[in-house]
């Protein structure tokens, strides 16, 4: 019994003969080949891909989120309270946090001693930013220039996350609270 599939192709005699369609396909791919080859031979770039990391594409989307920032409070200390929500929600297990207690600051008794992100694992999903109850971690539109020969270099330390200066504004633009409320409860 021959099973009929829902997407069974409808083929006329021409398609059934196969050879002509094969030749047509070869012409298409061959055409692409010769087109690109002609570009290469005339000293132009015949490919859509980039020589990463030597060549970095310039047209990253404005919505691109490529690097993490740890925000600071007014007094310059890190905003993070080391609650581990980001580390827990991270689907790639890329965040590791070591906490310390500071009983002098009653409002922030818990703070990160080490906060590290493994960029070799990070998938840039932004869940950490979503999960953070303190708005302590943000992602900014920045090209991640990570390629390296040592995977240990891919660990971003707390120092780096706090102190590197992104070229764009890391602040999140929140819709006004009232507007957000209306969106949720119209």
């Amino acid at each position: 019994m021959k099973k009929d599939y829902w997407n069974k192709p409808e083929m006329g005699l021409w398609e059934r003969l196969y050879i002509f369609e094969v030749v047509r396909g070869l012409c298409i791919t061959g055409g692409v080949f010769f087109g690109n080859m002609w570009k290469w031979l005339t000293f132009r770039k015949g490919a859509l891909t980039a020589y990463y990391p030597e060549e970095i594409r310039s047209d990253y989307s404005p919505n691109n989120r490529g690097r993490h920032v740890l925000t600071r409070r007014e007094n310059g200390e890190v905003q993070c309270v080391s609650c581990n929500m980001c580390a827990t929600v991270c689907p790639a297990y890329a965040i590791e946090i070591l906490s310390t207690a500071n009983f002098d600051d009653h409002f922030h008794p818990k703070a990160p001693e080490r906060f590290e992100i493994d960029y070799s694992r990070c998938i840039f999903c932004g869940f950490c930013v979503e999960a953070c109850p303190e708005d302590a971690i943000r992602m900014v539109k920045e090209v991640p220039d990570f390629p390296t020969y040592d995977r240990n270099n891919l660990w971003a330390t707390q120092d780096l996350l706090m102190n590197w200066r992104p070229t764009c504004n890391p602040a999140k633009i929140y819709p006004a609270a009232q507007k957000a409320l209306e969106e949720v409860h119209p």
Partner: protein
Amino acid sequence: MIELKIDNRTVEANEGETVLQAALRHGIEIPHFCYHPCLSIAGNCRICLVKVTGRPKLMPSCNLAVTPGMEIETDSDDVIAARQAVMQFITLNHPGECGICDKAGECRLQDYHVRYGEPESISLEPKNKKPKFYDISPRILLDSERCILCSRCVRFTKEVSGSHQLGIVERGNHSRLERLESQPMDDPYSDNIIGLCPVGALLSRDFLYQSRVWYLEPIRSVCTGCSRCCSVKVWRRNRHWHLRSLGEEMNRKVYRVTPQENREINGPWICNKGFDLHKFMGRKRLLQPMIGGSVATVDEALSEAKKLLAAAKSPAALVSAHASNEELAAFKETLGSRMTVYSREDYKAEEGEVVEDNILIRENKNPNSHGVHAMFGDLPWSVDSGHDLVLVWGDNVDYTPMGNAKVIHLASFEMPQERHADVLIPISTTFERSGSFTNFEGKVNRFTKVFDKPGLVQQAGDVFGRLGA
């Protein structure tokens, strides 16, 4: 036997049971904070309210004795509305800082808040300020803001440990937990109140901010602090959450030890020594086999020991009371017949330690003395029995009483010595092997492996197998 109906299910309860106990025993969940099966009934949290058909008001199920033919509803709309109201009341002054609270993840308040709580506080008043991070004892911190005044800890010191060191002072909104004596709490069972606390008000200073609890997993083990052999849970990092950047050693660390309920032996409690079991196990380890004080491989050390054993005219063995029954059996089978066997107590009660009480702590500070005595008798070691070779098994050994005899030593922890053992073989700790201890009452308690042993460390049973072969 009394029959009653809970949620249209006919349930059999014992005489004198409360509705909450009957329901829990039959797997019907009724939320509760202040009720604990081993403590008296306070009935002050009111989250366990249930509807009893024929009675106009909701009743607290923890304090409601079962009567025949009772009909209880635990999840009707008015019960749930009452629970929501109670949750609102309880969380009125709760700071809601689950993010930095060590209890988060195993907190009853958090669980019930997810089920019955409002997403936002509807109170207009500012929350009460109370002392945070107040030292109840050097081991325990109190965060009064988080406390819901269930009085479990107070009842524990009154009814279980009998120290009467905690109480609730002030009134109304200002009520708070306070120690009743001016000096820090020194109850030898004090750490139990950390686990007893249904919220994160009582915190272990040792575990404070070490890890979120959902990164950890408990392994059932046995406390080696005394011959009670209490069951404990040893919390190691879950394989899923192993750390890489912060250091591999964090994955081989015991984060905390908590009691494992065992009705036969220790009930739901252990003493503070049990809570410190991981510190006891975390002392400096012996990791390298030695021959006469110089580094050797495992094979060299074993063959040297074998040579010494073969040459000895009257060998003796000192058997550790920290050895598991399985290792003792292995020893008896392989070497026991060739040697005179003496038993030894590795540890004695230390200065200031509670020697013995009538709750849990026993005078013998070794877990398996009973097992050793049952297998080898209790002949104590004396210097002048004229042995020319002593195989010492266990920790905390001084070689001086051995005189001129050759010493083969199997130990887990380092201890400074006057002279070197002729052969020194590192063996695993309780956390690195599975086995069982026999406690002073003759009850056998099993423990499972928490970590793999370090590379050169041997299992004592294997060592005897190779020496005896």
